[in-house]
């Protein structure tokens, strides 16, 4: 009895050592192959595997090490096309967006559901929100010029474009990026529209291609089961291997907010009165939603004007205030 146990024990030991030998050899083999072949795994062909669901802004250390010329090039290279969706009933939001944050986009284009004298926008003549987004994004792609980053949001969202640029500063727009505040619906991970969506040029290119596929990406959504526009977008992008990623700062705090700053502060005050501001929102937040036009004016003042004397930020890059944007 003892002998057979010993025997199986020895067997296992022999197998175990073989196993570990194999493990070691396999790792070395992989390492050698990758070093020799400058191995970069390709994502395009494997839509099922996706390890990165969080996108973080670059840290201070990342930027400090760069030479001056490269910093200048980066600050000029990252340019944003803002596609802002309006409806005539949101006139006050249109006026506020026009007067405030949209001026900081390298190009801001408003898209309206129907024409209105007070609104200067591309008239999509479309009531269905998903169809509007399709048309707007197609228009944006065709009119991109040399802009490589696209931000699409409703006029009821407030965006801080400098912080958006900071988030994507070290990302290559020739790769597919689809960034915002992510949520999950069953198996589908999507970016919430309320807090704004960032698309890289490559992601938008693939999207416009899949728009032609009425099977995978129908224009009106399936008749029986109509998905919300944000989920439709995620589905279409998924077919082309583009996946939703949650935009975060270096501490892991979300940068895209689907609530107003006022209600986030109120929530924080409820939950932890000892550390309200610390726990609320990121210093480099990109979007807030659900604010009134007046609250947006206050936010504009609070970000671009009000500051404490004697506190200087030595940011590695400078984004100059846009010409003609006196409201900051």
């Amino acid at each position: 009895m003892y002998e057979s146990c010993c025997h199986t024990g020895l067997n296992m030991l022999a197998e175990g050592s073989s196993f570990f030998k194999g493990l070691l050899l396999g790792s070395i083999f992989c390492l050698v192959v990758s070093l020799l072949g400058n191995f970069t795994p390709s994502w395009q062909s494997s839509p099922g595997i996706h390890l990165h669901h969080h996108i973080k802004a670059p840290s201070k250390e990342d930027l400090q090490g760069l030479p001056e010329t490269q910093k200048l090039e980066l600050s000029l290279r990252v340019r944003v096309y803002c596609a802002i969706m309006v409806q005539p009933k949101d006139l006050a939001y249109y006026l506020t967006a026009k007067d405030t944050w949209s001026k900081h986009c390298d190009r801001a284009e408003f898209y309206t559901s129907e024409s209105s004298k007070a609104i200067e926008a591309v008239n999509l003549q479309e009531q269905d929100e998903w169809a509007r987004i399709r048309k707007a994004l197609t228009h944006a792609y065709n009119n991109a010029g040399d802009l490589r980053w696209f931000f699409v949001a409703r006029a009821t969202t407030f965006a801080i474009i400098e912080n958006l640029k900071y988030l994507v500063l070290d990302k290559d727009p020739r790769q597919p990026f689809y960034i915002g505040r992510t949520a999950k619906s069953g198996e589908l991970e999507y970016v919430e529209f309320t807090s704004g969506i960032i698309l890289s040029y490559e992601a938008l290119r693939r999207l416009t291609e899949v728009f032609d596929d009425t099977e995978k990406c129908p224009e009106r959504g399936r008749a029986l089961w109509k998905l919300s526009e944000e989920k439709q977008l995620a589905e279409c992008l998924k077919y082309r291997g583009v996946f939703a990623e949650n935009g975060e700062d270096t501490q892991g705090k979300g940068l895209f907010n689907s609530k107003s700053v006022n209600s986030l502060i109120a929530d924080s005050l409820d939950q932890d009165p000892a550390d309200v501001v610390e726990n609320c929102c990121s210093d480099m937040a990109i979007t807030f939603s659900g604010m009134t036009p007046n609250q947006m004016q206050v936010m504009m003042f609070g970000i671009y004007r009000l500051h404490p004397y004697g506190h200087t930020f030595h940011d590695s890059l400078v984004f100059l205030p846009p010409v003609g944007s006196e409201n900051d």
Partner: protein
Amino acid sequence: MKGLSSRYAFCMGFVLGTCTLYVLLQQLFDPRISPQLPRGVENPDTPVVVGRENPSTRPHGHRAKEADRYIADELYKKVRILCWVMTGPNNLQKKARHVKATWTRHCNVVVFMSSVTDPDFPTIGLGTKEGRDQLYWKTIKAFHYALEKHGDEADWFLKADDDTYVVLDNLRWILANYTPEEPIYFGKRFKPYTKQGYMSGGAGYVLSKEALKRFVEAFRTKTCTHTTPVEDMALGQCMEKVGVRAGDSRDTLLRETFHPFVPETHLTGKFSKSFWYWAYCYYPIVEASGPQCCSDLAVSFHYVNANLMYLLEYYTYHLRAFGYKYRYEPPLPKALSGPEKVGEGLEEAGVEPGPKAMGRMSAEQGAEPPNVPETRR
């Protein structure tokens, strides 16, 4: 049998080793990130402060993350401000505690004044009753207390309500152009009831040490007495009596810094022509409703509720636009550009010593005593 299972184990190990390392390499070298800019090590811990380390120990430490605070720290040392907050036992939890959690942390000294002493909060009991008719009594006693107990710890003495929000760093920028030996006080200047104007109580006002000494002395000699519960007007009348000048707190673009309402009102409010505010403002209003209503270096707002306290703290010290240069370039105040200049610390902080404070400021230095009526613009 043994050989086969060995080989099998070896194969398993080999496959597993390859896969593991494959996955590991994927994680480290995401091709979508620019190769010239490695992802780098995430820094989840304390934020990096660029520039000189703060030499003095700061009991309050609420910093704008990653900001170089060299100039702010210098002003903290040179322009010491005692903040006293007018509150009452019923407002400690509703209002005063939010003041305590936010802006008063930037004061050199802070005292919460109430009718009743509360050792836990803590508040100082002034021995008065509560109510609107007690406001000037509380003010008188509070200033007496501040001079007596903390006179040596501060150069300037700020009064605020428990619904006032104050940006101390911006207040120091203004005050650093004057000395505490001058008889002067600052706030949101109103026109009526006095020759030289008086300062709105709710928007907060700040007295120089000399002004405070004269105020306290005036009650000893009965030059000033409790005339009315309207605290701001009464104090303004006393100031005038004892030769304390009403200062001009506007920035170099003539925009107001002390504000009697919340930011939303000043930025977007529509005031009717008959609204009292128009008649009360001492200076012409640059922009009644719009971005130029308020200086970038705003000092105070009033009627600020709990939520707004934290929101203003977030806007002032936290939320910002990366890489953005503020349009308004304020000149260096006299205390920093004078003979005892701070030297290379300024260059490092990226500040050029700006032009001397505007002509009107130096004119005020040698100004006539305040009972000479100033020209009203």
